[in-house]
């Protein structure tokens, strides 16, 4: 088992590296230093010196991949070995490791080190250490996402079981229609509409806000409810499909031939088999609970990671954005690993080799 986990984690390494490459490409390469500086200053026409000031201050003037301007090069020149310049460079690079500016002092290595070593640096906008921001933002996000996750799971599976029990009746058809309709409404409509009708108009919930600790509950009720409604359609439909597939299998016929009640067949035999694909889909989502919901947090003023990401978008705060994207990828890899492991725990046919 441990060998399997280690093997899977090793496979994740090139994926994470790939993600770092992608974020580098997007944020450091495509967006040139000039553009970044202009964006940061937020003005249309900026003087050249101002631009250079900003660029240098943030270290954006360093070369992308290979830093040949290191002092090491100076050393090599002194050696003046024209034909052996490359070798000299290498020697110099080695020497540079002892404190001189090195060949590898590039934006690329900076970016990679930042992500891989979890030294995210500071937010460009607020200058706060990103690491601390993330840790602070995780708690509100979790208080929002965890109830949504569990409530959603419970309600969806229960509904799906009920529908599977009453399959091919009008109740079944009705639920399917309702699910498709619920699924087709944009989440913005749910949020804006829900906020307006339930909070502003009917005054059942506070419109937005957040309070730490236990007091957060009354602020979380509406967003959780809205998220539940939005997710219900797709989830129930998916779980229903899975359960109906299981119900048509041979072992169900055998169970009936044994004289078991429909209820036992559904809740014991079908459910246990259906849990396998359901689990696959669900465990994958668990790591993302940490990331929060972009829209819900924004609309309801919950200071979680989702809100942080949106603020980063609005101010083009790339260190924060690349940190969030990187985090998302890591969590995804974790989710995949957890899914595989849970698979082996639930399905006796799958045993780790």
């Amino acid at each position, binding site marked *: 088992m441990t060998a399997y986990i280690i093997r899977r984690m090793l496979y994740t390494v090139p994926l994470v590296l790939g993600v770092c490459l992608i974020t580098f490409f997007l944020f450091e390469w495509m967006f040139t230093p000039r553009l970044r500086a202009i964006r940061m200053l937020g003005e249309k026409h900026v003087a050249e010196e101002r631009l250079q000031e900003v660029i240098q201050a943030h270290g954006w003037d360093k070369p992308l991949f290979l830093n040949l301007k290191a002092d090491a090069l100076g050393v090599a020149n002194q050696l003046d070995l024209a034909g052996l310049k490359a070798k000299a460079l290498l020697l110099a690079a080695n020497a540079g490791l002892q404190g001189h500016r090195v060949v590898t002092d590039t934006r690329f290595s900076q970016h990679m080190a930042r992500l891989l070593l979890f030294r995210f640096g500071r937010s460009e906008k607020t200058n706060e250490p990103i690491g601390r921001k993330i840790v602070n933002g995780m708690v509100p996000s979790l208080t929002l996402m965890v109830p949504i996750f569990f409530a959603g799971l419970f309600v969806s599976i229960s509904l799906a079981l009920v529908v599977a029990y009453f399959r*091919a009746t009008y109740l079944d058809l009705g639920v399917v229609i309702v699910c498709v309709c619920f699924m087709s409404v944009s989440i913005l409509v749910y949020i804006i509409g829900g906020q307006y009708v339930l909070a502003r108009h009917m005054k059942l919930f506070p419109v937005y806000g957040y309070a730490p600790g236990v007091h957060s509950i009354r602020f979380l009720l509406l967003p959780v409810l809205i998220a539940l409604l939005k997710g219900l359609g797709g989830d129930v439909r998916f779980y229903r499909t899975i359960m109906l597939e299981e119900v048509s*299998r*041979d*072992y169900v*016929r*055998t*169970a*009936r*031939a*044994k*004289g*078991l*009640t429909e209820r*036992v067949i559904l809740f014991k*035999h079908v459910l*246990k*088999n259906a849990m*396998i694909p359901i689990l696959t889909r669900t465990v994958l989502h668990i790591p993302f609970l940490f990331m929060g919901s972009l829209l819900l947090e924004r609309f309801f003023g919950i200071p979680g990671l989702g809100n942080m990401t949106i603020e980063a978008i609005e101010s083009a705060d790339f260190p924060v954005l690349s940190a969030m994207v990187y985090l998302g990828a890591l969590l995804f890899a974790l989710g995949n690993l957890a899914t595989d492991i849970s698979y082996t725990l*639930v*399905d*006796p*046919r799958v045993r780790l080799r």
Partner: protein
Amino acid sequence: MAEALLRVRDLATHFHTEGGVARAVDGVSFEIERGEMFCLVGESGCGKSVTALSIMQLVPSPPGRIVSGSVMLAGEDLLGLPPGRMRRIRGEKIGMVFQEPMTALNPVFTIGSQITEAIRAHRDASRGGAARMAVDMLERVRIPDPSRCMGLYPHEMSGGMLQRAMIAMALVCRPVLLIADEPTTALDVTIQAGILRLLDDLRRELGMSVLLITHDLGVVAQVADVVAVMYAGQIVEYADVKTVFADPLHPYMISLLRSLPTLGTRKKKLDAIAGQVPDPRRFPEGCRFHPRCYMAAPECSRVNPELREVRTGHRAACIRLEGYWQPGSSPPVTPVTRPRERARDV
């Protein structure tokens, strides 16, 4: 005479499909005595499995429906029972074994738990007591190391062993009737004989009747007491096994036997029955076999023969048979004295 254990009368089960109504079982009647090995034999699609499912009322209900008939088990009509009563009869009075043991058992539960579940659904037994009964039954079906088998999952066992386990599960509550739907079809030929022998032995040991469904005449010859041959949703020949094999009457049965290769003879071509099994949504007019029958007469396309006792203890459904018609009545068609003589070779 003792009353038959199972008496099926005019059973008809139809399926409503996109292309029309498929009359899978269309007027089937037979009796199974206590302790008897009754074989229902026929090609794929003739309705034999649907007959079994209809007896158990396990026919998938949106497309399928039992439209008429009666199924009397020890004098009680199963088709008239409320669903709760029928459910209690399943597993306790009638056990059923299916064709593919690999898919017929739940892959996420152990064999032991599935058998004990069957016990505790019908009997008041403790976990330990049920487990003991299960091990006992597994031993009876000749599974080596039954206690270990209890903790195995279906995918950890071979096909033959799984089928024995399924038989154990079906018999653990000592039903009076076991329905076995092609129990050996999915297994290796070498395993088949063992399973058949097991079924026969258990029948005698437990004093139960067996309804064995198969398409394999070899299986029938090995274990059957009574044979009913089905074609296109109806029984066309019905007698004890010796009679059916030694003196077949219905041209379908004769053709089937003729198509079996025999050791020792040299034949250039294998004889298959010309034509194909008809679509249950569109049966031919009159006798359903007549388009493929070597002794069909024009009248055969107008009359759908019912199953009648042509000789003592030997029923057949063919209007061309002497003995089908009452003495003194004028049959619409000249009867054939020895149907076999009309076949090309014996």
